[in-house]
Each structure stands twice: as C-alpha cells, then as structure tokens.
C-alpha cells in the first residue's frame, strides 16, 4: 500500500520506514494479514466515531426511560443502539445538570470510549491535558471556551480502570421541536468528553 499521505516527501520518514519494515516482517512470518490491518483502519476511520455517541445522547434527550437505563447500566443501554465492544466493554454515563459539570480524562494513558467516540484526538492523549485537567479543570475548560460559574461543581473522571466514561450533556434550550436526528447533529465529540457544552447551531434566537 502506498504512503499516500506522504507522497510529497522525497525521503520517507524514519517512522514510515520502521513501521513498513515491521509490517513486512510480520506479514512474511504469517503473523498478520494485510487485509485485516486495512479493515481495522477502515473501521476507525469510517465506521466508529462520535456520531455513535451523539445518537446515544439524542436518544436519552427524547426518551426518559432510555435515559434512566443509560444512567443505570450504560453498557446495556448503549448496546441497545448497537454499539459496544473493543475499547468500551464497560461503560458509564455521567449526566451534566445546571449544578454539575462532568469532564473525562485518562491521566495514566489514553483510555477513551472507542465504541461511542472512536479513537481519541491528540490533545486528549497529550501531556498538557492529562496533567492539568485533574488539578485545574476550570482553567482547562476556560481554554476550551467554557466558563463555569463557581457554584457549578466540576467532576473530573480519571479513567484509571476498564470503565469508560461518556458525558451526557445538557439539552440546549429552544430544541423542544427538534427531531432525534436533528438533536444528534448538534452533539459534538467535545461535549461528550466534557470540554464543551452542546449549543444550537446558527445565530442565537434564530433556530
């Protein structure tokens, strides 16, 4: 397979060469199948991502019984929509309210709910986020553009075990007449990590 992302480079990077050599060796030894690698990459580039999580959130907003199941047994409730498995075997959903804001991190590595959010963005796995959000969550959230009143409690969830966390954001005001599908379109990855709120798209008061 060609390195199409790097074809502008005259000389492939050291990492390109190292990974290519390792893949070639493992294929030669019969330890991996190239088509399986392609299928794994295709899964996380095109099939599993934050749209899955957004559907979970929208369902919880329109269906109070589903929301209750989601908060009680998130793994089972998320499986109802067909999501689960690798990187998210054990799910927990934490609910934002006018008095509580939740934000998720993995200070020790990069744990993240793959089945509902896909693979994590670089900033989530990076030292600045991992080191700072537990000690100074309000400052970190401010950098993401989220200023929280002092009396709103911030709960930081450090994913130290095999439980994976998804934030249930507050449903924005003025969305009473939106369909479940339209609601899902409003839900961003960042709002489900807890570094943003869900906002109405478009000018305020015009939606």
């Amino acid at each position, binding site marked *: 397979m060609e390195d199409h992302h790097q074809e502008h480079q005259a000389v492939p990077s050291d990492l390109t060469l190292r990974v290519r050599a390792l893949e070639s060796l493992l294929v030669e030894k019969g330890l991996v*199948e190239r088509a399986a690698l392609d299928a794994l990459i295709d899964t996380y580039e095109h099939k599993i991502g934050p749209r899955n999580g957004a559907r979970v959130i929208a369902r919880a907003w329109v269906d109070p019984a589903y929301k209750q199941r989601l908060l009680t047994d998130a793994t089972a409730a998320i499986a109802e929509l067909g999501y689960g498995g690798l990187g998210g075997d054990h799910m927990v959903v934490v609910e934002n309210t006018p008095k509580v804001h939740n934000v998720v991190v993995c200070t020790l590595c990069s744990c993240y709910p793959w089945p509902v959010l896909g693979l994590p963005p*670089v900033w989530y796995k990076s030292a*600045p986020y991992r080191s700072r959000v537990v000690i100074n969550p309000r400052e970190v959230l401010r950098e993401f553009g989220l200023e929280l009143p002092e009396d709103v409690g911030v709960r930081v969830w450090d994913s130290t075990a095999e439980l994976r966390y998804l934030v249930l954001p507050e449903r924005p005001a003025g969305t009473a007449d939106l369909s479940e599908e339209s609601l899902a379109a409003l839900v961003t990855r960042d709002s489900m990590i807890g570094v943003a709120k869900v906002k109405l798209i478009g000018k305020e008061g015009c939606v």
Partner: protein
Amino acid sequence: MNGVHDMGGMHGMGPIDYEKNEPVFHQHWESRAFALTRAMSAWRKWPGDASRHQRELIPAAEYLRMSYYEKWITALVELLLKNGLITAAELESGVPATDSPKSIPSLTADRVPRVVAQGGPASRDIPVVPRFQVGQRVRARNMHPDGHTRLPRYVRAKLGTIERDHGVFVFPDTNAHHLGEKPQHVYSVCFPARDLWGEQASLHDAVYLDLWDDYLEPA
C-alpha cells in the same frame, strides 16, 4: 511505577494544542502502527495491561518526546521480542529467519467486525466478597510499586468515599506481569478536589477514580 506517564497534577507540560477537524490518523504509518498493535494482540500472548506497562517502560525523556503512535510501535516491538514472536536478528534484517515457521494470521479481515464488536471484557463473573461498601470512607494506599499500577500518585494516601461498586475485575498490577488475574472489586471513589490540591481548588469540585480493592484501606 512512579513513571512520567503518571502525570496527573504535574506542571510544566505546556498549553493544550487543539486541532480543529482533526483526522483520525495524521500519517499513514500511524494507522499501520495502530492496526499492527491491535492485530498482534489477537494472538493473546500478552494482556492489554502488559501493553500499557510496556509503554510506561519507555525512558521518561523519550516518553515525553515521542508522539502517541511512536510509543505504540516502540512498545509493540519490545513485546514481540519479549514474547518470542520475532527475533532481534529478524528485526535487524527485516526478513524471517530461514528456520522460522510460517504462521497463519490470528486475525483475518473477515473476523475484524466480530473482534471489534466483542471487545475483551475485563470483568469476571465470579463471586468475590467486596472489602468496601458504597458510602464508606477509604484511604488510597501509600504504595509505590516499581511495576505496573493504575493507582496514580496524586491520590495516594488521600481520603475518599466509595460512590459505586462496579463489580469484579482483573487486577492490572499482577495481570500486566503475567502473575495472574487476581480478580477483585473495582469502585468509583470520589476525592474532594480540596483534599487533593488544597486551597487553590474549588470547594465544589471533585475527582473520581476507579480503584481496586488492593489500592484501598478503611479510613
């Protein structure tokens, strides 16, 4: 181990670098490093805990310098060598040794959807008596193992409250070292932010961690 990977609460790591419309992989080799790591784990020669620990073993300066998937591929090579799936000579030459048996790949493309959907639960459906109850005050143990642990330094010796019992899970401190699963209860434990960080923290804030029985003692 008290490694640099255990960075919760550290200063000096710089600003958060946010990228809009970030691609899943930035370079082709990153996607291959990711897929190779997942495909090789299908051989079940090592648990996920061992993969995590192998990344922690990357020397501190290198750990901080390397990009995410560079850590993955570095750890994968070490695991392949340690577990005898490749030899140093093969790694050097890039070709299988002449006497190397040809395997049949453990993970084939047709099995990928099922493997992804099934995952690999770390819970164990066996009766283990919980050492703590919801609502109980606990102290995170002041322990400093030089092997793998999922008890971050920033909560050790701190007081918290058991908020939820998640059930019985494999214990990473032994499992990462092939010393058995030692299944035990994992709890969501709430630590008030002020107890962790002092006056600078808001009275309203808290940090929640998922901690195993062996990390806790009665307060």
